[in-house]
């Protein structure tokens, strides 16, 4: 009669960890500060996934995100920044979902279906938005006025903040 094993769901943890490694690996190549911050973030995410700690995963993923931004600040590279930031968000989302599934259903239950659906949807959103961004960058910057982009982003942020 053991107690219920409430460790984070396995499949999601694995994918979340892989996303964290990708986020770290891509950004760490380009700048030293990113390497340091990203390494701390990666360790926190992994510890959080093993021990089932929401806050460790959240703070760790934030570290990975900051590492991605630092890479973007220090270099002119675009796709590494996009990949690294997307992967950091994915590591956070999938990782916290793994912990939530673990605490509600435990490790022994069959949870592959909800995990797969969630992972596919989140990765889909990441792929679509970063492709849109990248497409905007490749086609747009030469002849579209920078003013338009500036106003567009400001509009998006304000609308998101107000339409909660």
């Amino acid at each position, binding site marked *: 009669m053991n107690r219920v094993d409430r460790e984070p769901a396995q499949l999601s943890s694995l994918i979340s960890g892989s996303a964290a490694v990708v986020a770290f690996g891509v950004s760490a190549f380009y700048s030293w500060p990113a390497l340091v911050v990203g390494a701390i973030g990666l360790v926190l995410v992994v510890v959080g996934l093993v021990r089932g700690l929401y806050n460790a995963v959240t703070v760790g993923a934030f570290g990975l995100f900051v590492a991605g931004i630092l890479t973007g600040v220090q270099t002119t590279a675009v796709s590494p920044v996009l990949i690294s930031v997307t992967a950091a968000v994915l590591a956070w989302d999938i990782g916290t979902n793994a912990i939530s599934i673990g605490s509600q259903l435990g490790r022994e239950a069959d949870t592959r279906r909800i995990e797969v659906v969630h992972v596919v949807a989140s990765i889909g959103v990441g792929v679509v938005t970063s492709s849109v961004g990248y497409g905007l960058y490749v086609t747009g910057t030469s002849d579209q006025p920078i003013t338009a982009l500036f106003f567009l982003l400001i509009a998006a942020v304000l609308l*998101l903040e107000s339409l909660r």
Partner: protein
Amino acid sequence: MNYRRLALAIGIVALGLSLLAIVFPGVVAFSLDRIVVSGVGGLVLLQAVRVIQARRHEDRDEAVTPDPELPSATPPPGEDLESELERFLDARQIYYRQTRLREGLREAAVTVLSQYDSQSTTEAEEAVETGTWTDDMYAAAFIGGEQAPTPPLRVRVPNALRRESPFKRGARHTVDAIAAAAGVPSPSNKDTSQKPQRQEDLQAESDTGTSQRRTDDSNGFDGKAKDALTRATHSTGHWTGVSVVALVGIGAGILVEQPGVLLAGVVGIGYAAYARSSALPPGSVSISRTLSDDRPEPGDEVEVTVTITNDSDQLLADLRLIDGVPESLAVTDNSPRIGTALRAGESTSYTYSITARRGVHTFGPTTLITRDLTSAREQERLLRAETTLTCIPPLRAIEEPVPLRAQATQEVGRVETATSGDGIEFYATREYRPGDPMSRIDWNRRARTGELTTVEFRKERAASVVIVVDTREEAYLSPEPHDHHAVDRAVDAAGQLFVTLADAGDRVGVAALSEESCWLAPGSGVDHRDTARKLLATHPAFSPVPTQTRSVLVRNRNRLRKRLSAGTQVIFLTPLCDDYGSEFARRLDEHGYPVTVISLDPTASGTTAQRFSQVARRLRLSNLRGTGIPVIDWSWDDSVAATLARFNERWSR
């Protein structure tokens, strides 16, 4: 509110400007000042910091799921020392808790000493006062007077640095010393050092577990509704703070003028929009449950198959289901939980195993947590699917005769009386009297000596016995929280005693001392046995989980007493962990029903209070024995057969 409207207005203006700039590049061709751009970037970053601050103070708000895997926990006796000591304090009014405990322990020590050390009460009081009753200095000092020895300074100094307070240490040593004086076997050192921690932990955890289940069960079903909403759709907080990605990306991107960073902001906007898009479809889900065997033998593994169907015409992306395993049963294989996604009309099923136990077990409602695709919103429901598992164990006789008191009915049977008559066993010979049957004349003697003598046999009479099981809420006890509890084992034993007595020709009945009235008058025959078997397995009074106390206990007790006919023997199965049980036995005995008490010992020795409850139980046993009632002490690890064998052996010698 105003801030939000302002942001909305500016946002719409900015959107319009950007569209204008795209369509007519010439119209909004004013060049943006560097300072303005930096200012906007700074503002955006500031907002990011605010969101992070807000996120830090906001926790996730998710459903907490019950633990149906484990059978409901039963505590060991001795929850707290103070209430255990209550009976030693009589009606004395002492307000300070520490004084109460000290006084109670002193009284207990005096009682134990006068009972087991063959001292008079005054001698015992004297011994306690001067501290000569024990070798333990802490105990002697704790309840002793001025002359009692105190621990030397060299042990008191290091003790002061330990975590245990001096009062607690004193109480612990005193209880141990009293237990030793009462002859309670002391637990090994390993046990005392490790067990308390673990036991208290388990206690705390299992308490929350059971309370969780109780609320779940009682929650909101009105009438025969198929499902009940226990928590309406609310945000889980899963995506809270994702806008930081957009804000930091755009703010920093504007400041450092790097396209990569700005585009990271676009990714952030994408996820933030995704999180906001979440809406929980009002899908309806139904479940059904099948058992591989709904009338199993105890100990059998029963496979439970649960099928979930999506009755709506929408995809349900995240369903988390926890089946309502009966409170008294343990899951032995797989998990009663599943997480699944179902397309419209689709259904899926899963299987887990439970081990059957005596009783009627009803499956509780199934907990369903529905989330949307993004996991941002969640809803809790209870789904109902009535399933019942009934487990009626066969009654097996034991080899040992059941010890009964010497008093009997007028029917031929097993109880050996102290009078001569028709029987099997030789009782005495006497001089022949005219009218004695020929077969009773001792012909050997007649041939040898010529005297006519008659052989007499011991008269054997059937007893009329009622087996009473103590199934009050207070009797649901066990040394380990998730073990079989005392009531379960007592009911099993009652079944064994029932057949053993019935096989021996006695008339046997069954009753329960509980809130639920339960009575089967003494009888015999195959039908009677069958009734008893069903009664012991399925009557609510013998339920495998404790029933809530209602105050009809006194009425039931009196009714039980009235139902007993004169001369009926009573075998009373009780753990004797409170005074009610022993009081009941004594009253019955005084009213002329010969009582035999069989008491299963569910005590643990983890904490000081549990240790003391062992002492209190032992005192109750000897007090009962003192009034002439035979008490059979049944230790937890023994079977009832072995216990009776030991008892019979001791009393036949």
